[in-house]
């Protein structure tokens, strides 16, 4: 009898707990398609005219993209966008972007595949980060599958604002995600099943998280131990991820890092989603005689 009571109690608790929540809770309520984008009107006649929101030196933002977001026809296609003005008196900043995979109620996986533009005070593009420049991070613990990118920037006339949007090219494709069965196999040193990885369709709707922090500030558990770490600044000039950053000294100089294994360092930077750091390391590696470091980095940045 006692056993029956226990089963009844457990089942009741389970069912009540389940009924207390609507099915699909936790999934973002995405619109069924991006058809709204076709009907949306271009808000502005130029990049310089995009309406902006002011950023604070320390801020966490959740940027929503959808039918209520202003739309502009960029050179890379029509897209909803957010334009954010960088705070001038704050000194160098680190901007960390995260776009998480969303799961619709019907199980469809979707992702806002972002592009980030760095504009000068006249509204000209100084730097561009395509969605391929973002790093894919598989789901782990409470963190879902996501794309991430971080870089440092010093606000000024050459770096006045950032614009985040998507592109027509991005909307034509998707991002392959690591199947949980593969992640489990990796964690437990099993042979990975040849299961088909799911693909998150790129959508013009979704949301992105932006974290703004003073450059050099270290967050997290290790902050009391290691203090501030140097993070390279993004040069405010139009460039591709594999293009060399300007070299300050024209004459060959002895690399202060000595005979380091640059590719290990670059690999570490990439795994930490710090593409700007990886690019700077590639430059140093080339100068130190490791010809092919840029190509090596480009290969790893290449999106399959």
């Amino acid at each position, binding site marked *: 009898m006692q056993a029956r009571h*226990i089963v009844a109690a*457990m089942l009741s608790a389970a069912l009540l707990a389940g009924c207390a929540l609507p099915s699909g809770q936790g999934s973002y309520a995405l619109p069924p398609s991006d058809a709204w984008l076709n009907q949306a009107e271009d808000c502005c006649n130029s990049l310089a005219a995009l309406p902006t929101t002011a950023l604070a030196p320390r801020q966490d933002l959740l940027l929503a993209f959808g039918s209520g977001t202003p739309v502009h026809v960029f050179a890379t296609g029509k897209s909803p966008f957010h334009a954010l003005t960088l705070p001038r008196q704050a000194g160098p900043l680190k901007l960390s972007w995260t776009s998480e995979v969303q799961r619709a109620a019907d199980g469809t996986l979707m992702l806002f595949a972002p592009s980030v533009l760095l504009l000068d005070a006249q509204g000209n593009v100084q730097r561009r980060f395509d969605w391929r420049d973002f790093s894919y991070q598989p789901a782990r613990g409470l963190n879902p599958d996501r794309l991430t990118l971080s870089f440092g920037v010093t606000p000024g006339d050459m770096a006045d604002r950032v614009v985040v949007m998507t592109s027509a090219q991005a909307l034509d494709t998707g991002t392959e995600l690591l199947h*949980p069965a593969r992640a*489990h196999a990796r*964690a437990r040193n099993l042979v990975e099943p040849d299961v088909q990885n799911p693909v998150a369709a790129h959508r013009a709707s979704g949301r992105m998280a932006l974290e703004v922090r003073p450059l050099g500030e270290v967050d997290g558990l290790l902050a009391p131990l290691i203090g501030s770490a*140097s993070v390279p600044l993004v040069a405010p000039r139009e460039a591709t991820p594999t293009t060399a950053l300007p070299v300050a000294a024209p004459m060959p100089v002895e690399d202060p*890092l000595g005979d380091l294994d640059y590719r*290990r360092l670059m690999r570490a930077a990439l795994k930490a989603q710090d593409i700007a750091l990886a690019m700077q390391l590639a430059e140093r590696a080339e100068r130190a005689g490791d010809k092919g470091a840029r190509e090596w980095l480009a290969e790893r940045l290449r999106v399959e």
Partner: protein
Amino acid sequence: MRLSRHTPLTLSTVVAAMALGVSGTAQAVDANFHGYARSGVGATAGGGDQACFQARGASAKYRLGNECDTYAELGLGATLYEKDGKTFYFDSLVAYSANQANDWESVNADDTQLALRQVNVQATGVIEALPNATIWAGKRFYQRHDIHMNDFYYWDVSGPGGGIENIDLGFGKLSVAWLRNTSTDNDFPDDDQNLANDTLDIRLADIATNPGGKLEIGYDYGSATLTEAQEDADIDPTKGHLITLEHTQGNWFGGFNKFVVQYGTDGIIGSAGKTNTASTVPEGSMLRVIDHGLVNLSPNVDMLYAAIYEDRDLDNGQGQTWMSTGVRPTYYWSDTMSTAFELGYDRVEPQESSQDTAYLTKFTVAQQWSAGRGAYARPVIRAFVTYANWNGEVYNAASESIEDLEGDGMTYGLQMEAWF
């Protein structure tokens, strides 16, 4: 998008960034912290600690709400070198197992075990002619195949060893390894002799068969490296062979299906394919057929399933036929909460007709809170109730809470499980 094989600790970027600001010989810590753990507390209805239900003679039991131990694996790995397409990766793992009875369960206690299960280096791209191949040496979990639902490792020759893997042949990938599984033998030639059992493992994987389908073919040869004394005693180890065919369908209702056929002989007949050539090991043959996998039945329901048939035909008449089947459907109320049900049935028929057939049926319902959605989302905390029914005395339990003549039992408790 490239899917990296190893996931990093965030320490890496900090150290790399710091390296830019300092001179000297800073090293990037590209560390991977990985592991597995399960632990909890449970009881048996009617009194006593948690019993766990497994049919006598079965090599596994369905595990949801049916694990009575604390077990953890903690591993650290790191890419120690990467240059010009050549990488050296170091991996290590320590395992801990305890009865889950007290706060302080010392590694010195009889029922507590601590084991160093992995210490190895894997070097990729170091052979010019085979740029994608990896040579390795050390203790290693080597290309293990398991059924998650009942924790059954049907192909696992892990141990100290070495070899080369992922040689690209164009139509598949070839791996060859030599692994050790030492046992003790009382007759080779006298008491307590170490018997250095070896397994030669050859696998050809990634053979495309049909759309979304891959085939893996394996051959394991089990033998022993004999000492002079053992040679002089004219010892004849019980050598063995194991052939494995595994077909994986990767586009299978959002999950996968694995169909496995194994045939083994003599000294390699075992649950995982490891070799034991001791004189006490009976000769004979084994046929094992397995089908298991994962399907998504709806956006909010998935299901693990497994079916096993294993026939051990031994010359001494001590063989058995083990049949097992189980399902674990789970309904997801949200991304963090689900209700799982697990129904499992095991039947073990001894080769000797005079012995009774053992069967055991178990059913579990568990309310779960997990980090994410899906059968493989972890960590998870679950509250469970398990009911089992079996025939008479033929039953294995990890508890004295079930008395000898009882034919059924019920347990309940809380458990966490994590991997990362």
